């Protein structure tokens, strides 16, 4: 019986082994080459469309409930901790050799927002000049265009959040960079002409100029890499009232002095910036240093030095002088301040582990003409300075753990220090419930973030 079963089993195996090559041969013989060509063609088309994105979910704990914060926005009154989707980005890139189209959206609990919507065309003769049009990162400095998914800290520096809210603007950009085959490839020049209103619609006739010249080089042994850049921004929105306040010194007094301007004329928004980056590969891992210094003149309001769009300060009546495009007439006076600020990152990739330590220090002084107790002191002519003129410095320390090619964990603590003045014991800064500027406010923030990138 056993022998019979074995014989049957062996016969079955033999039959199978004989059948397999026959089947294989049949498969080989029936390859449809037009199907293969179709697959190849589909694959080429599929490669042109690239979809990427990332989600950042975070828990934050503030020192005090209701603080004004640059660590992802102000905390609501009574709230000292929160869980939020900080960024939920999805980006579509269609790349057809010398022409690209990009659309990027931000989807969070706050809604759906457009982040990028632009096209880029590269001339095919020298492959050196490209033209971009739409909504894109302003070509100023280094930190603006450094992706939030790659950044080692939760947020950009206070100075960039203040001067360039949302990072993007509407306009056109000309980029000059020689192709990789050229020894001039290390240089890049970006020149932009933008609305200056962020991603909102244009509200005046003025265009702002922005430019960035940068250079990057590596050492022959690929141990050392450096980058340098210089930036300029020149523009401004239309005055919506006839009142401009500028900083003046009169004797021992420093304060805002009223000047009369013509409604519809252009305010002065002018920045200069320098940026530097260094990377060094050594025994302890790759060390990176990044720094940037900015200075210039910023038009704001009495309560804020944040970049304004014409809509923020009201708009000019169509009946008033040049520049007007809207009909309402609810203007705010412009306060012009000389500002300065900088940031410095020190990043240490720990050996070849997935761990990365980061220390960041940033400073923003919205009004370099005054400091300390000069802020808010009474002036006999003009208008007192106030909480919007206080300097802030932030020391951030953090640790990143790159768990996989998709997932990154970040733990980060911001130590925020404000300049103190005895003259402002009750400053209404934003929505903050901390209004006393006679001492350092308790507004440090801890962030724990998980990022998934695809």
């Amino acid at each position: 019986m056993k022998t019979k079963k074995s014989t049957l089993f062996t016969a079955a195996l033999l039959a199978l082994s004989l059948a397999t090559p026959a089947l294989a041969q049949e498969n080989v013989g029936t390859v449809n080459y037009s199907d293969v060509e179709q697959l190849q063609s589909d694959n080429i088309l599929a490669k042109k469309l690239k979809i990427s994105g990332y989600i950042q979910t975070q828990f934050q704990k503030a020192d005090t409930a209701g603080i004004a914060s640059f660590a992802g926005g102000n905390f609501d009154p009574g709230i000292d901790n929160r869980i939020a989707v900080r960024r939920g980005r999805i980006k579509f890139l269609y790349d057809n050799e010398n022409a690209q189209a990009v659309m990027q959206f931000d989807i969070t609990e706050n809604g759906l927002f457009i982040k990028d919507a632009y096209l880029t065309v590269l001339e095919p003769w020298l492959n050196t000049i490209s033209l971009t049009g739409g909504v894109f990162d302003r070509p100023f400095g280094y930190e603006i265009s450094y992706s939030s998914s790659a950044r080692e800290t939760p947020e950009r520096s206070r100075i960039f959040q203040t001067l360039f809210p949302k990072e993007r603007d509407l306009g056109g950009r000309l980029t000059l960079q020689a192709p990789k085959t050229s020894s001039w490839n290390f240089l890049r020049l970006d020149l932009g002409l933008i609305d200056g209103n962020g991603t909102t619609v244009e509200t005046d006739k003025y265009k702002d100029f922005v430019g960035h010249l940068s250079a990057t080089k590596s050492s022959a042994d690929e141990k050392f890499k450096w980058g340098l850049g210089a930036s300029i921004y020149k523009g401004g929105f239309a005055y919506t009232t006839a009142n401009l306040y500028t900083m003046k010194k009169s004797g021992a007094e420093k304060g805002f002095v009223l000047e009369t301007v013509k409604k519809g004329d252009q305010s002065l928004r002018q920045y200069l910036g320098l940026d530097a980056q260094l990377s060094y590969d050594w025994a302890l891992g790759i060390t990176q240093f990044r720094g940037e210094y900015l200075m210039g003149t910023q038009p704001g309001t009495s309560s804020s030095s944040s970049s304004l769009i014409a809509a923020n300060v009201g708009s000019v009546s169509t009946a008033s002088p040049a520049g007007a495009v809207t009909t309402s007439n609810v203007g705010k006076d412009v306060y012009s301040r000389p500002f300065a600020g900088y940031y410095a990152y020190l990043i240490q990739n720990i050996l070849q582990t997935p761990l990365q330590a980061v220390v960041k220090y940033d400073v923003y002084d919205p009004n370099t003409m005054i400091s300390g107790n000069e802020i808010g002191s009474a002036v006999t002519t003009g208008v007192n300075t106030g909480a919007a003129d206080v300097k802030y410095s932030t020391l951030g320390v953090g640790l990143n753990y790159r768990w996989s090619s998709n997932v990154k964990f970040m733990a980060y603590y911001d130590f925020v220090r404000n300049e103190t003045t005895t003259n402002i014991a009750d400053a209404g800064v934003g929505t903050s419930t901390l209004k006393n500027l006679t001492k350092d406010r308790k507004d440090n923030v801890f962030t724990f973030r998980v990022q998934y990138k695809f």
Partner: protein
Amino acid sequence: MKKSLIAMGLVVSMMLPSVMSAQKVVCKIKGSDTCLPLSQKFAEVYGNKNAGSGISVVGGGSGVGLAALLSGTTDIAQSSRKMKIDEKLKIQETGKAVKEVVIAYDALSVIVNPSNPINKLTREQLEGIFTGKFSNWKQVGGQDLKIIVYSRETSSGTYEFFKENVLKKKNFATNALLMPATGAIVQSVSQTKGAIGYVGLAYVEKDVKALQVSFDGGKNFITPNVENAMSRKYPITRPLFYYFLTSKEAAFKPLINFILSSEGQKIVLAEGYVPLS
């Protein structure tokens, strides 16, 4: 006693396959065309010696191989240039780390058509030819014949090495013909009378002529060969690398040990490359 011996024999015979399978390596190698013939030979010899191994090797250029390692579409990137600091940072951004192994050296050779009477050139003359300053062979002491420059594409590590070390970072001539593979350069130079190109030493064959080069202004002209490369007399000698994720180091260790062994280095020499020592 007999039973014990049979049992031991059985145990040993059962263990043998597992010992052998510890040497089994299955991986994909991609990148440098310069490394391609050498990696193919390693794969063939190692595969024959270690049953169950499956090593596939493809070229495309060092940049292509390193990009494939970053994207996880190859296991080992073969490269004729060092990994760039930006590429290392990108790898670290994914939570991974890379291991670098020098597998051999190469003497980068400048080749011309065998019918060309020129036998030697200085670095300065090479720079002039490849940057387009010289367009006729008579400008460097040769025939009245137009110079046809062949180069590799920008993704090639050899391209970058040649530009850095021979052209001193100057641009290639705008009319230089960029070829997708080293084999294509050899073929084109062998078929074109006024042609000049550069390839790894292992690609030098009878259909092309390798030139002596001088990096001291014409005092000493050195022939590209293994001896001169080993003694570092030949000035355009460079290391060839394998890069792989440290997380896969244990899996590839048998192959790497084989390559670095005396047997592996004999293959290096036999294939026209320069051994490590």
